[in-house]
């Protein structure tokens, strides 16, 4: 493979050399995985179109993380096949790793390094030119410039997550996995992460997002799939999913503000107050 021609590495704005323009970004067929007796995945099938946001919904233990781990080459499936950016996750794992980045459930950042050093580290591991410039650009995009030289251990949960997602953008991979990106965050930090994901989608990146917050899927996802008892039981756009229910009844209800509305009204709208 000629994946590393120098002129392809000049900057982040150039699409990755691995971009295989044909077919879906992610193709999963008949995926099965068991941990001893426990059959977590019992034949999972789905496709994710290029440049779309795909939300995988499911309750705790539904197997969302297992799917993400198999797709990011961290775990081998017992049966079935998966291709990411045209590469088979088992036989062409190297090609897959060139095409993806993973933001796991636990912020994958180095607490002892500064935010900038974290980004420089990842840029150097992608063998990019000008790691410092890439780091500064991402710090700016994620409103972390001021905190850039501070130890990450001093960051708030939302800042760590933002840095985490920024690190996933280094190297400009065409496919990004976000495994429960807002788990354990307060409402303000969640809004910060949402902002970051929206920016990703605008850049044309394919995003596979797992979540147990339904409103999150409703907000961004082009398609939503529900993983339940090891299988995808529903897969469609939000409009298609809503048609599965009986037609809406018209009722007149006085709209009370939700607690979230109150929270944001009181603290100011999150995710924007620390950007210029």
């Amino acid at each position, binding site marked *: 493979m000629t994946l590393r021609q120098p002129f392809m590495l000049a900057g982040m704005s150039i699409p990755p050399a691995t971009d295989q323009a044909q077919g879906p970004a992610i193709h999963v067929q008949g995926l099965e995985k068991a941990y001893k007796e426990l059959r977590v995945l019992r034949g999972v099938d789905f496709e994710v179109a290029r440049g779309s946001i795909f939300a995988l919904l499911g309750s705790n233990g539904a197997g969302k993380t297992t799917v993400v781990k198999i797709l*990011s*080459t*961290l*775990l*081998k499936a017992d049966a079935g096949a998966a291709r990411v950016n045209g590469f088979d996750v088992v036989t062409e794992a*190297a090609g897959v*790793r*060139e095409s*993806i*980045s*993973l*933001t*796991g*459930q*636990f*912020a*994958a*950042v*180095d*607490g*002892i*390094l500064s935010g900038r*050093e974290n980004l420089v*580290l*990842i840029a*150097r*591991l*992608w*063998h990019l030119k000008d790691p410092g410039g890439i780091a500064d650009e991402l710090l700016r995009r994620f409103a972390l410039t001021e905190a850039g030289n501070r130890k990450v251990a001093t960051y708030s949960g939302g800042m760590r997550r933002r840095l*985490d997602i920024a*690190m996933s953008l280094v190297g400009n991979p065409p496919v990004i996995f976000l495994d429960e990106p807002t788990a354990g965050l307060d409402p303000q930090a969640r809004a910060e992460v949402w902002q970051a994901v929206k920016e990703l989608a605008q850049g044309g990146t394919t995003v596979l997002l797992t979540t147990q917050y339904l409103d999150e899927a409703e907000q961004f996802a082009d398609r939503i799939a529900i993983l339940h008892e090891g299988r995808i039981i529903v897969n469609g756009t939000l409009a298609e999913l809503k048609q599965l229910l009986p037609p809406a009844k018209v009722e007149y209800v006085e709209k009370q503000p939700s607690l979230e509305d109150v929270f944001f009204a009181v603290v100011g709208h999150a995710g924007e107050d620390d950007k210029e």
Partner: protein
Amino acid sequence: MATHFLGDTVVLTGRTMRHVTRSLDTIITTAITPIVMMLLFAYVFGGAIDTGPVSYVTYMLPGILLITIASGIAYTALRLMMDMQGGLFERFQSMPIARSSVLWAHVLTSLAANVISLVVVVGVALLMGFRSGAGLPAWLGVAGILVLFTLALTWLAVIAGLTAKSVDGGSAFSYPLVFLPFISSAFVPTDTMPGPVRAFAEHQPVTSIVNTIRDLLTRQPVGTEIWTALAWCAGILVVAYIFAGIAYRRRIS
């Protein structure tokens, strides 16, 4: 991928080295135990131990250096364990980098951190009256054996770091290694020990390593014991390396 092994290892070693330099207390903690032992033995017990014409500080220094390494590698296991627990390790595994670079970075960092601790301990020993007439080749021999011993124990620490379930477990494995020099020729000549203890002391790795380093520092002929010492170091290194590889593959698959 292999072509990036060196570059990736250098980058990742830079990261783990920052973990060491930003928590210098780990270097101090590593060096302080052997230094206290050295003070204790030199100024409390040492007067009662007859080591002939060699000063007692010089006599016990080889053993003290091995204790320094044995306590230093506990931090290697700890750093590796902490890395495996965080999400960063999974990020590295999902990136297009040489996968073994992550381990080698820890191994090289362990070597560097131990060298720093050893230099500190030798410095204190010099203040306490350690003197050696050894020439450059002999010093290089000493350095070579210490590096080999550090690498051997580091790969043991890698096994502990990859398999330990808790912080306590991750560092407890080093306690027997720290105490091994006490049942050896490191502090007292073995011929004063009762039969079974003496038999153990004379046939465990530390005695041959200590005797070789001591002979090199005191300008004595090293004899065949250097081969025993090198065989122990190389043997531990190879076995630990193989088992660490198995533990690593089990962990990442």
